[in-house]
C-alpha cells in the first residue's frame, strides 16, 4: 500500500486520534463502559494500522524490539507494585482503603486507576508483539 497516497495521508491524520480514544476508554472505565482490556486493544490496533499501511521496517522505527519487550513486562510489574504498596501502608494485599490519600473513596479510585493502567500497557504491548512476530514470517 505504499503507492496509494490517499490511504497514507488519512492514516497519518487518524493515528493520534485513535490513541487518544484508547487512553479515554482506559481512564473513564469507572464511570462508563470500558476499562483496561478494552482500551489496551484499541491502543494496539492503532500501531497495527500504521504497520499495515507503511510496512514492517517503518513500523520498527516507530517502536523498537527492545522497547516492546520491556513494555510487555512493565504492566504486570505495575499491577503487583500497587498490591505491594498496600502491604507497605499496613493492610492486606490489594486492599485500597488503607492507602493514605485522603478519604476512603479517593484512595479506592486511585488504586483502581493504577490497576487499569497496568493492564492497558501489557495488553497493548502483547497485541503489537503478536502482530510483528506473525507478519515477519512472510518476508
Amino acid at each position, binding site marked *: 500500500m505504499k503507492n496509494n497516497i490517499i490511504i497514507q495521508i488519512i492514516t497519518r491524520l487518524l493515528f493520534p486520534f485513535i490513541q487518544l480514544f484508547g487512553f479515554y476508554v482506559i481512564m473513564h472505565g469507572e464511570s462508563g463502559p470500558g476499562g483496561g482490556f478494552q482500551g489496551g486493544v484499541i491502543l494496539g490496533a492503532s500501531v497495527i494500522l500504521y504497520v499495515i499501511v507503511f510496512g514492517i521496517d517503518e513500523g520498527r522505527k516507530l517502536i523498537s524490539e527492545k522497547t516492546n519487550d520491556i513494555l510487555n513486562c512493565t504492566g504486570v510489574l505495575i499491577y503487583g507494585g500497587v498490591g505491594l504498596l498496600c502491604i507497605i501502608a499496613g493492610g492486606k494485599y490489594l486492599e485500597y482503603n488503607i492507602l493514605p490519600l485522603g478519604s476512603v473513596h479517593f484512595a*479506592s479510585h486511585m488504586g483502581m486507576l493504577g490497576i487499569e493502567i497496568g493492564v492497558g500497557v501489557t495488553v497493548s504491548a502483547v497485541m503489537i508483539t*503478536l502482530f510483528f512476530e*506473525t507478519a515477519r514470517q512472510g518476508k
Partner: protein
Amino acid sequence: MKTTYLFVVLITGIALAYGTIDMPNFGDPQAPANHHVAPRYIEKTHEETGVDNMVTSVLASYRGYDTFGETTVIFTAGICVILLLRETRDNKKKNRRKKGVRS
C-alpha cells in the same frame, strides 16, 4: 465419513436442547443466578468503593486477584509466541541455509 460426523453433531445438539427444559426462562427475575451474590454487589458498590460502573468495581476491587492472574495469562501468550517464532542471531544463518535448500 461426513455422515458420521453429521450424526454425532445432531445427537449432541438434541441432547443439549433436551437439557434446557429445566433451565430458567429468559429474563426471569427469580432465577437462582440472580439471588446469591449479585444483589450484594448491586446494592453496596457505591458506598464501599465509590465507583459507578458495577462491572469495573467487581473486576478491580472485589475480584482483583483474578484480574492479576488474567494479566499473567496474556503475558504468557506473548512469551510463547516470541519463543516459537523469533529468529535470533544464532539461528538466522541456519534458517537461511534451510530456505536455500528447499526453494
